[in-house]
């Protein structure tokens, strides 16, 4: 069968279940959290991860969850899985909000059948490659930053044990993310896990006297506390932060993007803004800052994924508040700790489509990246052009849906590959959510946004996306279509849990 975007989907996938195609109306479900069971009367502090696993009743087939606030400096996931392996457990489902190159040891566990399923929002490195090769026994489920808490809170994703890396923690399980060597700021991605998992274990390298204020995750959710030597590598935690691009092409794209913002009618007091952490996306933030200063505009909030650039905008009074789901660099962590106008939000508050309101719905302007975009404006950030898993929606689909103006900023050509294709290899975000594409050789507006075209056309030269594709292909030549394997190794879920696309095996 096909979903409304024309993507071919089976009706049932082994290891995943029945497929609800994207575009089908899904009734919203919301499960009220049951009262905490098995209240712990003893000491919560345990001597080791192994002890915690045993006390929590680890069994074959369980779902274990992790957050990714320690990013490519995370030690927690590897250590927990190592202990699980040593206990002879098999068929574990890993629900990690993101997976990075540092999680490479998981490849061995996948090959040995210790880990047989992964549910995540973003994946890169050796694990991504192994999954693309077909080594994972069940299809990987790629969710979004908003869809994951939806799944957890509705019961679609049942977590047996949540292991929460805690930069600071007290003996009663209060977790704080701003103190300690591994301080990472907001812990937005772990809040639904803490509230809904059957068992919750805080893993910390910094056991502090009670209470561990400022408390990000309350003791009322935490079963056990384990102290280990190091939960992460600080240099890896703030890695992945890029500085503003120095590339003149990226800078040009940023300037053109801010021009679009200027003439869109959204540049006014009370505006809200979010951008990614890539070099060009950050350059947009800087250009926007200069424009807001020039036009004397004060925004209401900036959200994200925050970096020092967003913090600067807050400090210079360009935005009143920051709503933060994750801190990418130490400036953001510091600001989160010290500035009461820089506050956290859970991933659920950020982008869960099934709550009574999510922050993305209040967003005016969103700057997004793309690996590929097609003539229907569908965007792929899940796989490379060769079909290999490398990325994932993260907050892409959520913010693109909610924002009044969703702008994709990208070079027209990367290496020798044109960004614009007839059809993307994998759909992450549907074209109905994408308004504008800005490249160094032209700006295209989604024809579904005639109102935007009217606003922009007298000040900005607009081109049809088909023409941009032709310009690119005249330079690069037309790329040969890659024929992937038939076997499905992954399912791309949209934020409501429907299946927007499938990912097939790649032979290396």
């Amino acid at each position, binding site marked *: 069968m096909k979903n409304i975007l024309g993507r071919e989907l089976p009706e049932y996938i082994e290891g995943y279940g029945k497929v609800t195609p994207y575009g089908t109306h899904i009734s919203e479900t919301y499960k009220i959290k049951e009262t905490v069971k098995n209240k712990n009367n003893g000491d919560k502090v345990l001597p080791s991860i192994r002890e915690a696993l045993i006390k929590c009743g680890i069994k074959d087939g369980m779902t274990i969850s992790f957050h990714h606030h320690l990013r490519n400096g995370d030690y927690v996931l590897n250590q927990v899985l190592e202990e699980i392996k040593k206990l002879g457990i098999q068929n574990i489902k890993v629900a990690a909000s993101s997976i990075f190159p540092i999680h490479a040891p998981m490849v061995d566990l996948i090959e040995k059948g210790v880990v047989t399923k992964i549910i995540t929002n973003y994946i890169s490195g050796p694990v991504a490659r192994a999954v693309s090769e077909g080594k994972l026994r069940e299809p990987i489920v790629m969710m979004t930053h908003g869809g994951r808490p939806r799944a957890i809170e509705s019961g679609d994703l049942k977590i047996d044990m949540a292991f929460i890396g805690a930069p600071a923690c007290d003996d009663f399980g209060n977790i704080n993310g701003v103190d300690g060597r591994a301080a990472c700021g907001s812990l937005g991605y772990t809040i639904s896990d803490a509230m809904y998992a059957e068992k919750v274990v805080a893993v910390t390298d910094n056991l502090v006297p009670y209470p561990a204020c400022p408390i990000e995750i309350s003791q009322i959710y935490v079963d056990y506390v384990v102290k280990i030597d190091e939960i992460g590598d600080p240099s890896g935690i703030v890695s992945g932060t890029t500085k503003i691009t120095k590339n003149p092409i990226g800078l040009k794209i940023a300037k053109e993007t801010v021009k679009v913002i200027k003439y869109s009618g959204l540049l006014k007091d009370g505006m809200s803004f979010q951008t990614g952490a890539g070099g060009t996306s950050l350059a947009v933030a800087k250009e926007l800052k200069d424009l807001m200063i020039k036009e004397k505009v004060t925004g209401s909030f900036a959200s994200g994924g925050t970096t020092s650039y967003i913090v600067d905008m807050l400090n210079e009074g360009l935005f009143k508040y920051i709503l933060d789901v994750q801190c990418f660099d130490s400036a953001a962590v510091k600001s989160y700790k010290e500035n009461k106008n820089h506050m956290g939000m859970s991933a659920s508050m950020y982008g869960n489509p099934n709550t009574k309101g999510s922050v993305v719905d209040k967003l005016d302007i969103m700057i997004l990246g793309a690996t590929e975009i097609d003539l229907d404006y569908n965007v792929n950030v899940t796989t490379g*052009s*060769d079909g290999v898993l490398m990325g994932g929606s993260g907050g892409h689909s959520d913010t693109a849906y909610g924002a009044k103006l969703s702008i994709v900023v990208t070079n027209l050509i990367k*290496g*020798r*590959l044109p960004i614009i294709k007839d059809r993307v290899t994998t759909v992450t975000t549907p074209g109905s959510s994408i308004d504008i594409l800005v490249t160094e050789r032209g700006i295209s507006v989604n024809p579904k946004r005639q109102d935007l075209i009217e606003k922009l056309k007298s000040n900005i030269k607009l081109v049809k996306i088909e023409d941009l594709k032709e310009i690119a292909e005249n*330079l*690069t*030549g037309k*790329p*040969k279509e*890659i024929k992937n394997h038939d076997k499905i190794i992954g399912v791309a879920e949209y934020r409501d849990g429907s299946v927007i696309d499938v990912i097939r095996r790649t032979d290396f």
Partner: protein
Amino acid sequence: MDIIKTGKAGTFESNDIYVVIAPNQGIKIEIESPVMAQFGDRIREVIEETLQTNNVKNIYVKAQDKGALDFTIRARVETALNRAAK
């Protein structure tokens, strides 16, 4: 054109192609590229065309591509040929 010694041209920078040529019996072309699947055939085609234009029938070409467009491939192969023929 007769290839009498080795010739090199190009760099490993983005959008460039590093070409090394040497004498050989017949035409043998080896290509490495990050876009092998999408453009491997086209890269080979352009190299072969350039060899033909220069009337080269015996040559070994090793090309390490970093996303070069057609004109760059043509230019680097021609430069390497000139250097190997002198």
